[in-house]
């Protein structure tokens, strides 16, 4: 039985072994370098002993073919998208010596965002942003829905985790001097992401529509109103009028789950692109040593 896999691109086709390393006519390179005669009924590649029958060989053959399936799928995708150089370049890019656990804070922040996005999307299946229903639907999520308390808890505590992580990531960037040329633009994008993350916290605070969330929003909108000239209009925009109305809640919901997450996702993409393009910086305590070594190499 031959599984109908698409043909392999040349780069992924099994290559003949180096001279002397393996006998020619070897089967597919599955790592062990053992000679395997795949013709049914002759040998199972076990020193020429007679096999117990065709079933063993078929199993070996099937295993071989099964191992080829992911390679075949990857090759099929790569032949049509040409993304393997990009993926390989991203995955195997060189990082400076001294790269340590502090460099994972950015990824950690991104995973916190993805966790917020996923849990938020599923919370939206049960949440109802109407003033008469919002609190009830949150109670329903917390008390009745299977795993509702857990998913809501992840979203609630994940928000705090994300803010903590983004500040730690910012502190790492600052103290390692990773904001300097040519990475200033990435710093600016990162600051915008920080502001957007805090705006997520602010807009999400209202959604349970309990006393704390309501009054926190009243206070936050009035703080916005304290900016001269534009402030009163910004406050009116946020509330959708001069008073807190039903529009305010649905407006905050839309800002919280559509506008800001879209912006954050787009900016994370730009942030990552710049990280991949510019590379990461070495820790500051390795700079001098590394420069010396480079000079010697160049000489």
């Amino acid at each position, binding site marked *: 039985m031959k599984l109908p896999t698409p043909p392999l691109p040349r780069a992924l086709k099994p290559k003949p072994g180096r001279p002397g390393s393996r006998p020619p006519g070897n089967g597919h390179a599955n790592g062990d370098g053992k000679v395997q005669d795949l013709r049914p009924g002759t040998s199972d590649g076990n020193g020429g002993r007679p096999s117990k029958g065709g079933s063993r060989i078929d199993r070996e053959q099937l295993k071989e073919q099964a191992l080829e399936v992911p390679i075949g799928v990857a090759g099929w995708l790569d032949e049509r998208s040409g993304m393997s150089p990009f993926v390989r370049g991203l995955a195997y890019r060189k990082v400076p010596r001294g790269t340590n656990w502090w460099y994972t804070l950015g990824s950690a922040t991104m995973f916190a965002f993805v966790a917020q996005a996923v849990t938020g999307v599923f919370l939206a299946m049960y949440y109802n942003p109407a003033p*008469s229903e919002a609190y009830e639907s949150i109670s329903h999520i917390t008390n009745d829905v299977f795993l509702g308390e857990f998913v809501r808890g992840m979203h609630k505590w994940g928000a705090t985790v994300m803010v903590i992580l983004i500040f730690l990531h910012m502190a790492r960037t600052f103290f390692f001097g990773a904001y300097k040329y040519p990475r200033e633009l990435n710093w600016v994008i990162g600051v915008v992401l920080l502001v957007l993350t805090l705006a997520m916290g602010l807009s999400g605070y209202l959604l349970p529509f309990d006393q704390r969330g*309501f009054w926190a929003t009243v206070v936050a909108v009035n703080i916005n*109103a304290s900016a001269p*000239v534009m402030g009163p209009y910004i406050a009116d925009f946020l*509330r959708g009028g*001069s008073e807190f*109305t*039903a529009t305010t809640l649905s407006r905050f919901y839309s800002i919280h789950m559509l506008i800001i997450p879209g912006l954050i996702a787009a900016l994370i993409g730009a942030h990552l692109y710049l990280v991949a393009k510019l590379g990461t910086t070495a820790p500051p305590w390795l700079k001098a040593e590394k420069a010396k070594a480079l000079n010697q190499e160049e000489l």
Partner: protein
Amino acid sequence: MATKPTPKSKKRSAYASDRGIPAAYEGETVTRRRFMELNALAVGGIASAAFGLPALGFAVGPMFSKTVQSVWKGVGSPADFTAEEYIPKVITLVDDVGTAGKTTVYLRRANPDDPDEFAQPFVAISNRCMHVGCPVRYVQASQRFICPCHGGIYDFQGVVIGGPPVRPLDRFRTRVNNGVVEVGNRFSVTDALDEMYRPRDPSNQLNGLWEYLYPARPTTPNPRS
């Protein structure tokens, strides 16, 4: 056609062929490639504006219409109130949002000898703190309005005597209609209590030039109407 590019010191020629652009037609001022670039940009811009501007207007629309209709709301009979004590009454400013649309108003009979009471039969003081909008409560023993959030303190007239608030407590218009005390539009006041201003948000100062730095918004009704 094959003229040299003009030197930098001279003004650039209006004709593409004079600027040394290859394959430029005689007499054309914009190359076909550049013309198509501009066309593509213009079409894209018009298409984006066609959905973007209405969507933006849709989002900011509520900033330009009155949020709350001017309605007089009855709060009790004139005999319920005295000039020495504030009585709290709850009125509904916004329908259909439950308790979030309600607010407390502190009412007392106006002092006819006091010129600072806007020639109204009753004084109706809003409980919205002028720092950032927490609800203040009236403490009869000290005759003070006290805010629980950040320690704002107002005197019997609602004028700030301590803490962070930036102006006296807002008031509401009052009248007596068919033997019922009614509360109308909200208005803001300065420290001098001399004039009814269109309501400003908490945190907006109103004395002197601040009136213009924190302008009245189209969403709020004129208190005199």
